[in-house]
């Protein structure tokens, strides 16, 4: 059974280098874990400028309710993916990802 391994910083580096497109099998496993564990407060992006600015937000009420927006915005989707990856890594590892 695949389990999260906080020592696999190589996977974080691989993701940062290419958030979209082909991933190694272990990175794909990690992403599948990360992306399906937020049964409440799922991270989403709210497009606050048409295809130009996205604000990080979390759904409410067991992912059934409107998003609660943060004050973090992005001007590209790759940066948003990396920020959420780091948040999820921290939530799973109990410590921040030591890669900026």
């Amino acid at each position: 059974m695949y389990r999260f391994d906080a020592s696999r910083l190589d996977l974080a580096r691989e993701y940062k280098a290419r958030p979209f497109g082909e991933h190694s099998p272990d990175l794909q496993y990690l992403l599948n874990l990360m992306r399906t564990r937020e049964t409440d407060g799922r991270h989403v992006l709210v497009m606050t400028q048409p295809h130009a600015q996205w604000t990080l937000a979390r759904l409410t009420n067991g992912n059934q309710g409107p998003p609660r927006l943060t004050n973090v915005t992005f001007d590209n989707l790759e940066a948003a993916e990396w920020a959420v990856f780091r948040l999820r890594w921290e939530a799973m590892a109990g410590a921040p990802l030591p890669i900026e």
Partner: protein
Amino acid sequence: MGGVQAALGGDGGRASAHRMTMLMAYADAISVRPGDTIGFKVSCDAAEHYNARIVRLLSPEAGPMAPPFRTEPVDTPVNGRHPARTQPLRAGSWAMVPAHPLIGSLRSFSIAALIWPTLPGDGRQAIAGTWSESACTGFGLMLNEAGEAELRLGGTVLRSGEKLLPRKWHFVAASYDAATGAVVLHQDLLADKTMTVASSVTRQTTASSVASRNGALLFAAWHVADSDGLAGDLPMVGGCFNGKIERPRLANRALDRGALLALMGGTIPAGLVETIVASWDFSRDIETEVIRDTSPNRLNGVTVNLPARAMIGQNWDGSEMNWRHAPHQYGAIHFHDDDMIDARWETDFSFAVPADLRSGCYAAMLEAAGAQFQVAFFVRPPKGRPTADIVYLASSATYTVYCNNIGRIRSVMTEAVQGRLTVIDAIDILLLEHPELGYSTYDRHRDGSGICYSSRLRPATNIRPTGRFWNYCIDLFIVDWLERSGLAYDVITDDDLHAEGLDLLRPYRVLVTGSHPEYESLQMMDALDGWMRQGGRMMYLGGNGFYWRIAYHPMRPGTIEVRRSEDGTRAWDAEVGEYYHSFTGEYGGLWRRNNRAPQALAGVGFISQGFDHSSYYRRTDAAHDARTAFIFDGVAEEILGDFGILQGGAAGLEIDCVDPMLGTPPHALVVARSENHSNTYELVNEEVRVAHGLTDGVINQQIHADMVFFETQSGGAVFSTGSIAYAGSFGHRDFANPIARLTWNVLRRFADPAPFSVPRSGPPA
């Protein structure tokens, strides 16, 4: 807490982007002609006024990386400021038998039904009766907060004391004897094919006096006031039921348990005929909104908000799958408290389509105090007077089926399927804030059953030139490309094609599809097939087209049914036994299960989807065939479409490939084939008979998009791209790119009357 989480300062708070004003609207039509009038229904709160503009759309609002958002103003008196008002959204389906003296004069009575509750214990829910929740008059058989059967009779409340089981058939009945005051309630859990143990409970009490009520008898709802002020004569209701109701009976005296059970058969026993006030048979008139009383009294009624019909009943034994063959086994109606088919709003302004308005894609652009909403519609050419050789077929059926898709936002699986974060905007948030808008056929009802009906007579958050790139919004990239072709084109919709068939297409030489024409009725398929056999030339500029069979409601234009049977990429499964459309009796599901695989029409059919990254096509040897030279005139590149606004490439999102076994013609030429798709591209499940794990784009050779050309009889031809992302590549480098160019090459050749010839023998696909 540290790292990024600390930097965010916890979970933030409500966004500055959150609107204080709610603005929503819809129109009474999606396709109009010059001379027609289209009514817009608007609801707006926290603002005194809203502004409206009618525009023709030439492109989508696609941000700084795409060509600019282009609209063309339409000069009309409706442009400008309008007073705002709030209009209600009352979700929930129910049925009504109009007030009748036979019901209003009842003193003693019995009421009985079979029910299959789906959310017992989730709030009080009405089953049947004349009960007024506000006046506490009449009688009502219902479920109480604990999920027990309960009878309310004026001030008397009698409960069964035992919770009903979800998704199990129960017999519920109650009687009142005016002479003795005796009130009796029965609740039976019925035996079925599982090992669940049947049980029965009877309770009784005495009512001293009962306030009668001469109102409509309702199923799956109770009265809360005499009128809701909306169009029509429907009462205002509450307490909507979730689950199935079958064979309700109403008698004019207090019957004992044996007699009540005897009423549940298909034929009323002779000794009980005189007691019957009404005996409703929901297996009659399944295609309609009528509920039929088979007693001599004919106390017929109507359904509201289209509860699901052609539902298997308590007596379904699995021997028959088609309700037309055994309607008596399909006597159940499934009601939901979140059904929404017609908001029944009043019209706020009407746009009279000018006689000289050109055919095209139009929208009412609404704005109020920072909130925005758009209502899309299409203008066809005047009747019998096409204005071009080219026609663009807007995928109105697909837009409707996707109307208010909430699952992509709420499901925890969306991100894994799409390989990227879910993006929403302010209009999508309306859907989260207002579940009463009703959802799409990609979603489930609150009780877990699949939503099989959808309509546009309610605000649609997905049919607009703004927001997420999907369906309508992507299709406007095709419109932009058409606009820049220098060739004239008309616009028609799926709804028009369904209604008018081949006659609608006959004047045109070229048909251009949208990016994702996924849903077709039999009438649409027949029209396309017939037109192509008569020389029509189709440019299928999308992916996953011609995939699902749909049925249009016979009386409600634009209302569509989808039964998601057996297989296919789908958000829910139809219950076994419920694969046939209630609107038409046609078998639902994939067209490839209906002898009309998409490959037979377009040469290609759905093979995979992935949303993280789009790839490119590589030219094949067939691209150098003399038959296809016109496609690549002036196009030197071997790699085609390694650019685009839809995830960076022309081949992606949902992709199709050839399959001779499913109907790709032997002489079809694959002129380009995509490669290098990512892990999120998974083989469609209808191609996986035995789970083998070799199903993602990294390892599975089946996963690619095919760009295909073939000639048809009578001088016609087909060009298919097999990719939704294709349209996102048109605007790259201000349309100076090989994708835009080669597609224009095809458009111009297809518009040329010179006939195509089917080769005597061609290489296999």
